[in-house]
């Protein structure tokens, strides 16, 4: 078992010695059972850090956010940041390093192994409780969770409410780390890698389209999937046009002819353009933290699009995102033996 005191002590030590300017971690929120992200800058605050199965967020997002803030600042503060990272989060840091988003010495990874379990999937909990939410979720031994509800407690085997990403996880302890807490753990045998994507592929073409048409049709275009993704750091997304500057001399024709890849309307076709573009842009970069799927308010299984591409990357191109910092990225490299038979 990971002791939260270890994480707290580590964070306090880093801040005391001035090794980092802040530590990204989790604290108890006010909004229910889920832990929320926090940034602590004083050693005295380290006691608020928590570690439990509701520490869902991928905090690497805030490394990206900080980098953007510093880039816009007149007096940038580029001292290192400490980050509490699960296995998947550390892979996200690795991809960002691989892409030179920041330097290795600018981040201190406080690795936490998920050991035998991982984090819960609030959607599975919602299904279990038919929409109700627990007031507290704790680890219950090595392979179970304890939910506290109005009027009672409930023990649930991990397998039932563990997030899909955790069931399929192949590296539950952070490979990239400066310090790691908890026992090392790899594949846990809950489900084979890419299980969900493979299962989805088992359906017929008509069934697959019926499912995705239903999903694209429901999309609200709140863009939470994009906003929460540490890899979605483009200054301007194809669906927005925030950098199309209109000057006094910009003609009506130029305004009319600017490229609009996707309309604002939340139609099936437009949402398909958005989600497929996002999926392909994450090919070879998605570390399967599952955040896009978790945050979706209407529960579109977005993770399937990404893991399906990671499955192809792994099986056809022997590529795993966030595993080898020196490796060229998936789409900026090739091999002579890449598949060619699909080409006429």
């Amino acid at each position, binding site marked *: 078992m990971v002791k939260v005191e270890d994480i707290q002590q580590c964070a306090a030590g880093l801040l005391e010695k001035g090794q980092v300017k802040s530590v990204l971690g989790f604290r108890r*929120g*006010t*909004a*229910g*059972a*889920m*832990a*929320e*992200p*926090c*940034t602590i800058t004083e050693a005295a605050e380290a006691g608020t850090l928590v570690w439990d199965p509701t520490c869902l*967020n991928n905090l690497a*997002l*805030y490394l990206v956010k900080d980098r953007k803030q510093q880039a816009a600042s007149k007096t940038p503060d580029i001292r290192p940041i400490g980050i509490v990272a699960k296995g998947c989060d550390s892979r996200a840091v690795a991809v960002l390093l691989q892409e030179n988003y920041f330097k290795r010495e600018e981040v201190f990874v406080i690795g936490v192994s998920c050991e035998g379990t991982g984090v819960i999937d609030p*959607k*599975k909990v*919602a*299904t279990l409780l*038919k*929409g*109700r*939410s627990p*007031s507290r979720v704790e680890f219950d031994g090595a392979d179970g969770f304890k939910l506290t509800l*109005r009027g009672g407690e409930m023990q649930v085997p991990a397998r039932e409410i563990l997030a899909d990403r955790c069931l399929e996880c192949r590296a539950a302890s952070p490979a990239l780390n400066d310090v790691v807490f908890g026992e090392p753990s790899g594949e846990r045998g809950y489900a084979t890698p890419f299980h969900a994507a493979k299962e989805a592929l088992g359906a017929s073409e008509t069934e697959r389209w019926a499912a995705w048409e239903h999903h694209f049709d*429901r999309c*609200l*275009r*709140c*863009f*939470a999937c*994009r*906003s*929460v993704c540490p890899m979605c750091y483009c200054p301007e997304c194809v669906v*927005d*046009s*925030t*950098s199309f*500057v*209109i000057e006094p001399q910009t003609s009506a024709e130029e305004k009319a002819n600017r490229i609009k890849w996707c*309309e*604002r*309307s*939340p*139609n099936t076709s437009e949402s398909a353009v958005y989600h497929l573009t996002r999926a392909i842009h994450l090919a070879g970069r998605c570390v399967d933290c599952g*955040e896009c799927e*978790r*945050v979706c*308010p*209407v*529960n*579109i299984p977005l993770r399937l699009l990404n893991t399906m591409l990671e499955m192809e990357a792994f099986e056809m191109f022997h590529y795993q995102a966030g595993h080898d910092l020196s490796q060229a990225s998936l789409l900026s490299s090739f091999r002579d033996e890449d598949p060619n038979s699909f080409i006429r």
Partner: protein
Amino acid sequence: MEKILSKEKLREWVGKLDGCEVHAPAFADSVWNYAPVQTGGDIDLSHTNTVGSVKAFAFPQREVFFRFEQAKGGAPVLTATVPEPRPTVVFGVRPCDGRGMPRNDKVFSAEFKDPYYWARREKLTLVGLACNEPHSPNCFCQSVGGSPHSEEGLDVLMTDLGDRYHVKAITPKGAEAMERAGDAFNEAGAADQAEVERVHAESRQQPQRPIGDLAAIPEAIKQNFDSPVWAEMAQHCIGCGICTFLCPTCHCFDINDEATGANKGERVRTWDNCQFPDFTMHTSGHNPRHDLGARLRQRVSHKFLYFVENHKTQQCTGCGRCISECPVGIDIVAVLERVGQS
């Protein structure tokens, strides 16, 4: 009109609403949301709250204003597309969502009566269901002047009494919907009345998120306009649109022309969102609300300051969706508390 409807007769009532589009909460894709009810279909009213609010029935996410077309050399031709919906009855509306509608009505009629909104709104009958217990730990309807059995904005209020519903018509539209199935209902006796009052009183005692002094909030927000509190509270905000898209009273929209062919198109209204970077983006590229703190301040100020100034009431009805669904735990109640303190 107050009646009693046994639970098995709910289906009969719904069946009598022929000619109407009927919607009710359904649990699909691990989430409660409104879904159309097929004729003779069952309704499950054991829902918590729907993820999407009832506002979408009057103010859909996409509304076509008109179509336009211009043949080469000809004059442009506009075709009006004011909707002509069938009468629509929505079941299972929670009182917080019900209270949202009169607020939206104000917005879409204060200075200009929006024909698109009202074409749908006038055909809409809201059948509410009182909350006997809070369906989420983030409920705070009573803290913003509502109650778990508020009748405001609803046409009918149903209360679950175990084996039966107490059904009360609030508006003539609601009474009409009930009269459609006159024989399905029984008269409510004195014992039923007493039971309803007991259930309502009990529901008001259930724990909710407290807001200290509601009346002092507008002033506190004004005092804190330039405060670092906003940036602090929005430190982990990711700038997505969940809070406002799910809100029963957020009503900001965008209008775009969408080409549908080489020389034709549609003018379309879609929901917009004060949390998005292009919401306040000027054509020059300048963005007056360039950071997430300013955007959080806007969302909170609109609900608890500007709306109060313009319409004498809060724009928030305490449904708690923005809190429960926020991916990073930003909590409007905690924000108000923090702003009130500084």
